């Protein structure tokens, strides 16, 4: 069990902290969207790729990806643990959520890094 590695209070401290810091980064993200370029065109492919050319902004996006993934998958783990109990099920949920979180962060980071390095053409 995850509880053998980390105490639940440590996991929950990370849970609360990631939520608070993520809110801060989301505010920064929204403010950048309002102040840089056209808000209406912000979801166009060229605009999205152009975002990653700014390293500080790419760092903000990477931080949001990590914080929201950690918080979200731990939340999912908690919901699933409350739905059903049992050692095998709880181990599957805990390690499944951990693996999904790592996979999502890895895939998202790969995208951010590729776009930042200019490997994705507009």
């Amino acid at each position, binding site marked *: *069990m*995850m*509880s053998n590695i980390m*105490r*639940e*209070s440590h996991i*929950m*401290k990370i849970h609360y902290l990631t939520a608070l810091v993520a809110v801060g980064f989301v505010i920064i993200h929204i403010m950048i969207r309002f102040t840089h370029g056209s808000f209406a065109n912000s979801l166009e492919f060229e605009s999205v790729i152009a975002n990653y050319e700014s390293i500080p902004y790419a760092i903000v996006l990477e931080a949001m990806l990590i914080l929201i993934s950690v918080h979200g998958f731990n939340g999912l783990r*908690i919901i699933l*643990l*409350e*739905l059903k*109990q049992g050692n095998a099920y*709880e181990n599957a949920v805990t390690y499944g959520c951990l693996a999904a979180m790592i996979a999502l962060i890895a895939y998202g980071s790969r995208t951010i890094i590729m776009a930042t390095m200019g490997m994705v053409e507009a």
Partner: protein
Amino acid sequence: MTKGGALPKGFERPSSSPSQEKYEKVKPSSKTTTLRISKFNPESDSTSTFSEFKVHYQRWTTVLDAILEVKSNYDHSIGVRYSCRQATCGSCGMIINGKPKLACFTKISELDSDSVTVEPMNNFPIIRDLAVGFERLIETHKRIKPYIIRDDSEVTSETKEFLQSPEDVEKYIQFAGCIKCGLCNSACPTMATDSSFVGPQALAQAYRYVADNRDKGKDERLKIIDEPHGIWRCHFAGSCSQVCPKGVDPAMGIQLLRGYLLGYRK
């Protein structure tokens, strides 16, 4: 069924019954309600059914009085647990008109309803009808070590009495009022889905001892509740505190207990 409850001092039932009118005079405030009692025997029934009885009640008649009236005169098979009849023993917890309450502490006249429906408490296994099993509550209560933990004792001659100031007592005294009736566990939404959850009763008692300055077992207790089905699964619905008949506030105790685990309380 038309029998009334016990009469107060100064009122007497007529020994003979010359007229119904005279009988009505000694029951000035008597009203009638329908008592619906949930019946379920896990050994023979697949679902619960309701038995209905017409009962007379006075201003002071409790739900337990009415159930016992029915049990004495109309259906001896009703399974109900009770003892003190004064909200002290915590035996007669049940769902009354949809809310967890003590039957001995709930007057029919205060329910403001044409009928009274009584069911066994939620989140407890049914033994029979209104009687439920308390094994889980007792097990979780024992697990949090509900006693003062320290190496020395105030009963030995070498040590002095463990004195506490009124401020020290104030920190935990409301939580010492718990009668283990199980109403908080019955009202808890997490208890309904998480069969391993410690529950508000045990968590409130954990706080009661952690907050007691005579106790030295804080770290031991915090470790017990700091697990995947422990204190963190409380979502602060607050229903435990709403239903407590003794004014204990388990939801607050749980939040205060979290303070120790998050490090902002020492």
